[in-house]
């Protein structure tokens, strides 16, 4: 018998309907993008070919979907079985995040009708970070489907398949740890080839993959805390704060590593003075560091760590910090040369908001119809 249950309840609630409106607007612009071309919807240009669709939907979106990765690490590599209840909802969030990130990659792909070219080995350029990202993400989506499939199989009662799956699942779980490590680090490596265009405060060259994967893990733990907190408020059940506070502590450790690494790298590359330049880049850097340090301070104190509200605030701060780290590096302080500027258009933002709305709606539908959330002891 599964330890998970579907929450049930009405699907078409008012918030759901509101999200639906946002989703429909987003989808409308996605259709427009396919009919009239990207320029009709997005503000991307010659110097900023990557806008929020890449940076938010793919780079940040998948990092936000690292909950599954972070928990898989925790549960299966470090053998922390007690976190098992958090795994399935995290996997669902990861699957949705990655699937929609993949969708985002498709509608952001200029020549989407030729996407299969990246699957043909003859085309592969092994020097390309993008190749690795593309293939790993594609593969990881499949892995996530397999990892999450027990929920669906339980729902339809396919016990035979579940048994078979149970035998091989360890391999997919291992892949589910390896693949995000690879492509999340590679999302950082993408920055290396951009050279001078990436602001010196963010252009750490060969340290990019390390910083990327560490920040992805931070965001992964944060999103687990965030989702669990929200689910708890939304769907009730036993408070999971004690469990979450430990995850928060891990995230805090990673943050200390991350911030220390940033500072050490800047010092070793002789760029530390740029922090005090007082320009836009330095302000953004300080803001980003504040968003990292604030939750670290919160989480350092065991009392506030046990406070669900503070824990959530810390988690959201970490999410903002991780997102801002990526936004800063890829967009905000990105400087391709004189005269270039980028700010997303309304339609472009609506597409991203639409995708987020779809993600939340899908999450709500799935948790209400499939055994995802952990069976509450009271229930």
């Amino acid at each position: 018998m599964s330890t998970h249950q579907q929450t049930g309840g009405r699907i078409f609630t008012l918030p759901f309907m509101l999200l639906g409106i946002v989703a429909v607007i987003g989808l409308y612009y996605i259709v427009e993008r396919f009919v009239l071309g990207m320029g009709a919807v997005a503000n991307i240009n010659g110097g900023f070919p990557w806008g929020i669709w890449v940076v938010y939907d793919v780079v940040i979106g998948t990092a936000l979907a690292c909950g599954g990765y972070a928990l898989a690490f925790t549960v299966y590599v470090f053998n922390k079985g007690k976190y098992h209840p958090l795994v399935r909802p995290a996997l669902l969030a990861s699957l949705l995040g990655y699937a929609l990130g993949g969708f985002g990659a498709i509608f952001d792909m200029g020549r989407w009708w030729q996407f299969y070219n990246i699957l043909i080995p003859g085309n592969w350029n092994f020097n390309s970070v993008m190749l690795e990202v593309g293939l790993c993400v594609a593969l990881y989506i499949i892995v996530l489907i397999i990892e999450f499939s027990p929920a669906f199989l339980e729902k339809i009662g396919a016990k035979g398949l579940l048994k078979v799956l149970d035998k091989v699942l360890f391999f997919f779980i291992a892949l589910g740890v390896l693949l995000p490590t690879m492509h999340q680090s590679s999302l950082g490596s993408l920055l290396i080839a951009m050279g001078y265009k990436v602001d010196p405060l963010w252009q750490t060259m060969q340290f990019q993959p390390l910083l990327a994967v560490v920040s992805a893990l931070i965001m992964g733990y944060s999103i687990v805390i965030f989702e669990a907190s929200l689910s708890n408020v939304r769907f009730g059940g036993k408070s999971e704060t004690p469990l979450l506070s430990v995850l928060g502590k891990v995230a805090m450790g990673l943050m200390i590593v991350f911030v220390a690494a940033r500072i050490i790298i800047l010092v070793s590359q002789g760029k530390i003075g740029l922090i005090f330049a007082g320009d836009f880049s330095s302000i953004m850097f300080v803001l980003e560091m504040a968003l990292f340090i604030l939750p670290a301070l919160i989480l350092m104190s065991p009392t506030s760590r046990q406070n669900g509200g503070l824990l959530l605030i810390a988690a959201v701060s970490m999410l903002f910090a991780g997102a801002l780290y990526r936004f800063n590096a890829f967009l905000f302080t990105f400087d391709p040369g004189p005269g270039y500027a980028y700010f997303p258009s309304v339609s472009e933002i609506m597409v991203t908001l639409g995708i987020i709305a779809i993600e939340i709606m899908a999450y709500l539908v799935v948790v209400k119809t499939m055994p995802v959330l952990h069976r509450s002891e009271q229930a």
Partner: protein
Amino acid sequence: MKRRDFLKNSLRAGAGVLAGAVVAPDDAEARPNLEPKEGAVGMLYDSTLCVGCKACVAMCKEVNGMPPVTISEIDAWDEARDLSGDTLNVIKIYKDGAGKTKDAEVNGFAFEKRSCMHCVDPGCVSVCPVTALTQHPITGIVSYNADACIGCRNCMVGCPYNVPQFQYDKTFGQINKCQMCNQKGVERIDNGMMTGCAEACPTGATLFGTRDALLAEAKRRMELKPGETYNYPRGDVSKPDSYHEKTVPAYKQHIWGEKEAGGTNVMHISSISFDKLGMPPLEERSAASVAEGVQHSLYNYLALPAVALAGLSFVVKRNADKAKDQKGERS
């Protein structure tokens, strides 16, 4: 296990797996810049010779079959302001103050050509996941294959000069960039011709030739004293269709493309410092070489990932079995 241990473990494991898999700074330096190809062809743009006639821009459009870029409604005039999906070459102006004197940095103006520099170590080729961008093994020409391209636009961010441009305004757009007039169906270089822009240039401001010959010519010009006359060749530096005499300007002692990020096959010289002409702040080491170094030390023959996968599989299986046993015992 105690929380402390967990934390310790996780940090240790993080350091182990991640450091092994993600950081290899020493190896990352391993791949040096690519070297110029022996038979590399290129162009030399001498900003001081440019008169802003835009013959090269028009010829480029004609040779490459590109439509005019218009600001107004009327399609009669090409008004391209910058490189775009429909413009592979454009002449821009640097202006300062009154903008009176040509080739003067202060209160002067100067022309500058924007087109593919055909890097010796091209970033676009390095980052393209599907080998849609390639560098010719002999000529060093960087060309593009739309049939392979998926439109990820990594080449655009990977190019230090923002050269590859996507046709955002088209339903089925593609990347466009200068391919030295040697793409399929044009093949001017293969047929012993020079690039359209070099052929059209009335003053020899855009000079065609092998990289070696052009670099030698550029160095010759660096040696000239301002005020003396020099017989400037026009067309192909090795067999100019004509010469014209002109007073030598005060060249900046800098051949852009000799060394920047591994060098370029299209080189620029000018009497204005290149940062003012919009050239990027490049070091001699190419970003592509660093990125590839990192990537290769991590993923060479997929050895590291394979080992990691094997290790992870073992650990996960062991832990999962253990968990099942515990569950079995408990229930």
